[in-house]
């Protein structure tokens, strides 16, 4: 079973700072990690490989530094990592990104399954996985919590929906986006780390993928961010001071009036 897993490198969330002027995330000097929700996709992929044999290929679109995330995935047990990297990809929205990633998948070769994380913890859209499925024109199941059965040409999965679980059977190849319930990501082993260190991570550029230039990067992105703002804090606290017994009585009366006015008592 050949499995392809698109992953993303995201800023480690406990370190994220926002630029108050522009409303964008400050990425400089921030440590990046594999998008934590992608780890569940990686684990699910490795488990399928362990069960059915085959190969797990992990790939990402990003700068050279993203190689680190790919090597981490290899250390966990993926067989191969591929970096999709080109200055022309900069500024891509979910439309342009899913186009680029779907083209990369076509180049990577034969596959039975694409497994993506539910969403990335930085952009939080959850659109890229389904976008890839649309570009590739393959069946899609989102929010997959369990893989029930895999046969030579079909897969049966459970997906979490608002009032329960939905069971879907789909022909292969297909794309799944998975949620936490699907697996417990393993930690990379020392053996895996060593293997990852010496493994080559090939790089594919826009030219290698023969991409339509008007479909990629900022130019190919129909999404326009008009403004990013902070929500106003509408909660306000009021400290009622009370000195001595008289003060306390007065304060209590004041509080009662306040709560009555708000129809809380």
């Amino acid at each position: 079973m050949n499995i392809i897993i698109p992953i993303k490198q995201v800023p480690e969330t406990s370190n994220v700072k926002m630029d108050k002027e522009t409303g964008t995330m400050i990425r400089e000097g921030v440590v990046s990690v594999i998008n934590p929700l992608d780890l569940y996709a990686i684990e699910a992929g490795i488990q399928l490989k362990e069960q059915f044999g085959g190969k797990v290929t992990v790939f990402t679109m990003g700068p050279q530094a993203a190689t680190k995330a790919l090597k981490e995935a290899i250390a966990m047990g993926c067989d191969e990592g591929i970096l999709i990297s080109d200055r022309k990809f900069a500024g891509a929205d979910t439309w342009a990104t899913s186009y680029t990633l779907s083209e990369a998948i076509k180049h990577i070769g034969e596959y039975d399954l694409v497994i993506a994380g539910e969403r990335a913890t930085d952009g939080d859209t959850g659109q890229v996985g389904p976008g890839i499925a649309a570009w590739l024109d393959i069946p899609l199941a989102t929010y997959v919590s369990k893989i029930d059965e895999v046969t030579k040409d079909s897969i049966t999965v459970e997906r979490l929906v608002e009032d329960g679980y939905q069971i879907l059977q789909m022909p292969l190849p297909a794309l799944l986006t998975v949620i936490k319930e699907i697996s417990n990501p393993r930690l990379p082993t020392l053996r895996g780390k060593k293997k990852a260190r010496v493994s080559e991570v090939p790089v594919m550029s826009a030219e290698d993928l023969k991409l339509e230039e008007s479909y990629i990067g900022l130019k190919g992105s129909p999404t326009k961010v008009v403004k990013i703002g902070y929500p106003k804090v509408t909660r306000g606290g009021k400290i009622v001071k009370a000195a001595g017994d008289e003060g306390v009585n007065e304060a209590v009366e004041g509080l009662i009036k306040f709560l009555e006015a708000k129809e809380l008592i």
Partner: protein
Amino acid sequence: MRYNHVTLDIVEELKKIVGPKNVFSDEEKMEAYSHDETNAAEYGHMPEVVVTPTTAEEISQIVKLANRELIPITPRGAGSGLSGGAIPIFGGILLSVEKMNRVLDIDYGNMMITTETGIVTNEINNIIKEKGLFYAGYPMSLETCYLGGNIAENAGGGKAVKYGVTGKYIMGMELVTPTGDIVNLGGKLSKDVTGYDLKQLIVGSEGTLGIVTKATIRLTGLPTAKSTLLVLYKTPKDAIDTVPVIMAKGTIPVSMEFMDKLSVQTACEYLNESLPYQQAGAMLLIEVDGTNQEQVELDAEAVGDLCMENGAIEVYVADNYTTQERIWSVRRNIAEAFKVVSPIQSLEDIVVPISAIPDIIPELDRLSEKYDIKIPCYGHAGDGNLHATLVKNPDHTLEHWHDIEAKALRELYQITKKLGGKISGEHGIGVKRKKYMLENMDPVELSLMKGIKMAWDPNYIMNPGKMFDIE
């Protein structure tokens, strides 16, 4: 010794010294000051009045008043202690340094910082981090504990293998003595043999020799890179046997934490974590730090290789925040997890020479079986400081537990002593281990300590009843 009670007149006098806002004696507010992290029902005691002074001069006046009126004073930091050191067991005045948390001086030239002692330890690192500096004191409770408490207890923690304990970093201090004098000890000097090293006598004195009001601490360069290993072993002995091998081979890890199967399993169940603990009888958590990520990862790998060569069954590597946090949270939550299993327990911190650790593990198993209680064992393998914790069997009555606890502790301490160890490596004696220290210490050493106490505190009002009794 008979103490006098805190009268209304004395409360008024205290209010004059520190201002009425900084004195309170209502039960509800004082309750929080009546215990630390030891079992409140067993060790807690209410103070008669709580004062929160803001200067050394105020503390000096309070101490002089206490001497005049023969009222005990109990100094207190954040109350995160584990031996009852900050509990006012004779009532009297509870003196909290919580309002003394100012940073007084950051001296980049000498790489030192001077602060008041009510500052939260972690806050120091937050302040100096941007300048690439680092305070290496690392008690596990660093987000709540105060520097003052760290000094009083000579706090150790999870990074002592490489960086040593609190005392190593205390260069100077301002102290209010038990008779109310204010004195400066030490300074910003790397070498100083001008008389006795009194500041180091104060470090670890559990507030019995005065109240530290300011401290100058030495800083080091901030380690910016780290790599963490989680190493699985079949048996505790295999794990512990690796420790000296690693220590001898060059790279000194910043942490080498030992966790037995029971500890890992309980913490994992508590955290809903899925580490593959079933196959492992024990684990080591090893962290290597430095300033170059690539080098640190290579160093960690070399340590991992040593582990594999010495019987490890698997080595997991965490070199980013997500995975490191996953591993560390297991270690940090062991105590909390056992509190859920059985809130009644005795958290111990025996310390033995590193090479004696393998000998103590089977003894713990024996005690566990003999008394029908669980004794999870985890702790700082790199420095021989182990948290063997006696956990009450939920089937036992409280009375039976008290009986067992005393007997099992006595046996545990005897074994520890026989192996060349001592009863406390970092939590201190306080009230909790007072009788056991008496049983396990050379009488001559004990009498020297008492001599110091009596010379410094002739009226015996400064944190009395801690470590040892005078009468």
